[in-house]
């Protein structure tokens, strides 16, 4: 448990609290479902509370959509598709998407604060990454809206119809943008279900759609838990499924869609290897390891949760990594200096803690930083498991928290084989000064996204998706656009 850092950061110059103001945001006590351009309660009248994980206090009551609500939403999306959105000239559709992008950029501060309140992520991330990137996705796809024939030369692209989209709680607004922007640009209408622990920014996005005058029914937001999601994805009136979430749920979706002919994209779990060779820029690799696993409290499907480090530099690197972890500030998500915020929910914290027990039970060496999380709220200190092997559960299973396993390797082939020896294949990282080794490793890793000498970098133009149990299909870039189109004669989507 104790820190082994000779530089002793524990008594460092303490930064005074620098909380981002919440005066400028408006949250209602109650949110309805956003169907056909209007907010309305669920038919059942049921609601559930969405909690601020940093205070454990409710932020708002949100409607719990049942089957009849989902049916209304799909019907609204169908009517908007048939009568308004798909007949509309593509350039006009593009204008609406540009408006959403601009409005989101203009209201970035408000969205960032709500994202951090509802989900627990540090304001530094929601302000600098989530919201700007969400806006960038709308900007990027808006540009394609009237150029689809040129995006897929030789094809006759046409929209699919009503897209049913279910998104997770780790990047609530960003995932909504990843789903909605390409769907609308391709000429589809959508019904989107945000995660039950983080519905607020999707509902604010619904308000924003009203504000920019998006025609009713083009975007519909239904809130609820897994039952609502199942009702949506099982609805006979949908033409496309897009899901981001756990591999287990992804498997159920695949099973239920088998034989229906409904196209789907699934972004599922990951257990990415971050490989550090002996000639790596060590200090920057330490930084990349930290960004790889502690970004968004480790609630990242492409997190670099398995560190593979050359035995030649393992000791030095670990010493530096521990020193760096000691300087991370774990605390109030709204404080501008917070590096690691709150775990998204009590349930997720329990799950992470269960894995901490499993790891210790398996005999791994357990280390946590000298960080001091607040007393209330759901927090987990950044954690290392060293002295682990491929056969350990903490190495095999996705923990989805600030927990890094550390293994050593001796040769290139050993590193590659260990990296690939997992049912997942979403992302990976390579750290070396040698260009040829970067190319060799990146081409031999079976993972959808591989970063070299950096980690967790995202851009709307770059496709994102997994091998094996990490998913089916790609989001982002032209690949992400194709997933919302019937490409006609030339290509299969």
């Amino acid at each position, binding site marked *: 448990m104790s820190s082994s850092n*000779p*530089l*002793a*950061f524990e*008594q*460092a*110059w*303490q*930064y*005074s*609290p*620098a909380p981002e103001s919440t005066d400028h945001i408006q949250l209602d006590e109650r949110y309805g479902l956003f169907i056909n351009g209007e907010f309305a309660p669920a038919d059942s009248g049921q609601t559930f509370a969405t909690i601020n994980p940093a205070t454990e206090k409710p932020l708002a009551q949100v409607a719990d959509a049942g089957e009849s609500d989902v049916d209304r939403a799909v019907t609204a999306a169908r009517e908007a598709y048939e009568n308004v959105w798909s007949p509309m000239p593509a350039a006009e559709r593009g204008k609406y998407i540009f408006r959403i992008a601009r409005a989101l950029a203009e209201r970035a501060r408000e969205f960032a604060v709500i994202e951090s309140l509802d989900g627990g992520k540090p304001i*530094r991330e929601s302000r*600098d990454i989530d919201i700007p990137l969400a806006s960038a996705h709308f900007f990027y796809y808006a540009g394609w809206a009237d150029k689809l024939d040129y995006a897929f030369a030789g094809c006759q692209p046409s929209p699919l119809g009503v897209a049913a989209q279910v998104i997770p709680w780790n990047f609530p607004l960003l995932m909504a943008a990843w789903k909605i922007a390409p769907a609308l640009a391709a000429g589809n209408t959508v019904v989107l279900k945000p995660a039950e622990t983080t519905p607020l920014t999707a509902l604010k996005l619904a308000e924003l759609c009203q504000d920019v005058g998006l025609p009713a029914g083009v975007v519909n937001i239904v809130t609820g838990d897994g039952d609502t999601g199942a009702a949506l994805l099982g609805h006979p009136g949908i033409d496309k499924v897009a899901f981001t979430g756990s591999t287990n749920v992804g498997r159920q979706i695949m099973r239920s869609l088998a034989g229906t002919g409904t196209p789907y994209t699934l972004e599922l779990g990951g257990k990415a290897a971050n490989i550090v060779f002996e*000639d*790596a*820029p*060590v*200090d*920057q*690799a330490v*930084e*990349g390891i930290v960004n790889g696993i502690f970004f968004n409290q480790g609630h990242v499907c492409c997190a670099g949760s398995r560190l593979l480090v050359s035995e030649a*530099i393992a000791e030095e690197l670990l*010493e530096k990594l521990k*020193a760096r972890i000691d*300087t991370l500030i774990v605390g109030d998500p709204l404080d*501008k*200096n917070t590096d690691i915020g709150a775990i998204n929910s009590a349930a997720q914290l329990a799950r992470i803690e269960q894995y901490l027990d499993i790891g210790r039970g398996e005999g791994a060496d357990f280390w946590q930083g000298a960080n001091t999380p607040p007393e209330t709220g759901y927090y987990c200190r950044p954690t290392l498991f060293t002295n682990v092997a491929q056969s350990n559960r903490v190495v095999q299973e996705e923990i989805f928290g600030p927990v890094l396993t550390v293994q050593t390797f001796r040769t290139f082939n050993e590193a590659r084989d260990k990296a690939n020896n997992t049912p997942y294949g979403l992302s990976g990282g390579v750290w070396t*000064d040698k260009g040829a080794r970067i190319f060799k490793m990146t081409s031999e890793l079976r993972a959808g996204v591989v970063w070299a*000498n*950096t980690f967790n970098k995202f851009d709307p133009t770059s496709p994102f998706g997994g091998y094996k149990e990490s998913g089916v299909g790609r989001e982002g870039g032209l690949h992400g656009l194709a997933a919302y189109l019937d490409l006609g004669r030339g290509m299969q989507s």
Partner: protein
Amino acid sequence: MTDLRLPDLSRVAPVDTVGVDERCARFRSRSIKKDAKIQGLKLTLSMIDLTTLEGADTPGKVRQLCAKAQHLHDRLPDLPNVAAVCVYPTMVAVAREALGDSGINVASVSTAFPSGQAPLQVKLDDTRAAVDAGADEIDMVIARGAFLAGDYQTVFDEIVAVKQACGDAHLKVILETGELGSLDRVKQASVLAIAAGADFIKTSTGKIQPAATMPVTLVMLQVIADHFRKTGRMVGMKPAGGISDAKLALHYLVMVNETLGPAWMNNTWFRFGASSLANDVLMQLVKQQTGHYQSADYFSKD
């Protein structure tokens, strides 16, 4: 001193510039407010090597600078003094006398500052003259020409010799990073200077652009951390040139705080080489106290 050996610089781990820039951006995104800000600003004042290094320097000019060093802004109570006054060797005696028993050190540049293009004997004489005149600290320059030509042994031997000539005076070794061309070279030069016995490593003479930058300073701080982990010996750090506003100085302190920790957060181990930083810090301190900024005319310029 005979046990000092030039390390194999080819074994120094490489530096990735993109990663260094990203880390520096994180330091700059720290929000320093209220008590932490006041603490940081006062700390900054106490770390300044108030500097004048002009061909036009005269005893009169140096005496005025020494007065400023001891009376930063007497209307504000509880201000620390600066750490040192930094001058050419010819001005050391004047500064020594003007500073009296204020506790402020006299630092002198030496070794044919700023170019370092002189025979070793001249550099050693230069250093001894400054020490004999009363310098507490010597800021030497490395032989960049020899370093860039790959003649590391010459650079190393010169530092060892100058360190010997310093006697009890502290030796700061100026790498002149603006002439080294890459962060890898900055790192190698830092490793070399520390191995040769530098008490401090320093970025720049202030005569070459770019002078101190956050990326260069971060790389040097990381070498200091590496050396401490390996040997337990602390080495000081002095970025110099181009740090003229308080906000930037606070970002440098954040960088020290999160790279080396609190043991380095004092003027024994960290200095700013600056001529105009003090007044901007004073302006910020007055603002913290009164709530508004005063015109520059309310702060003495010497």
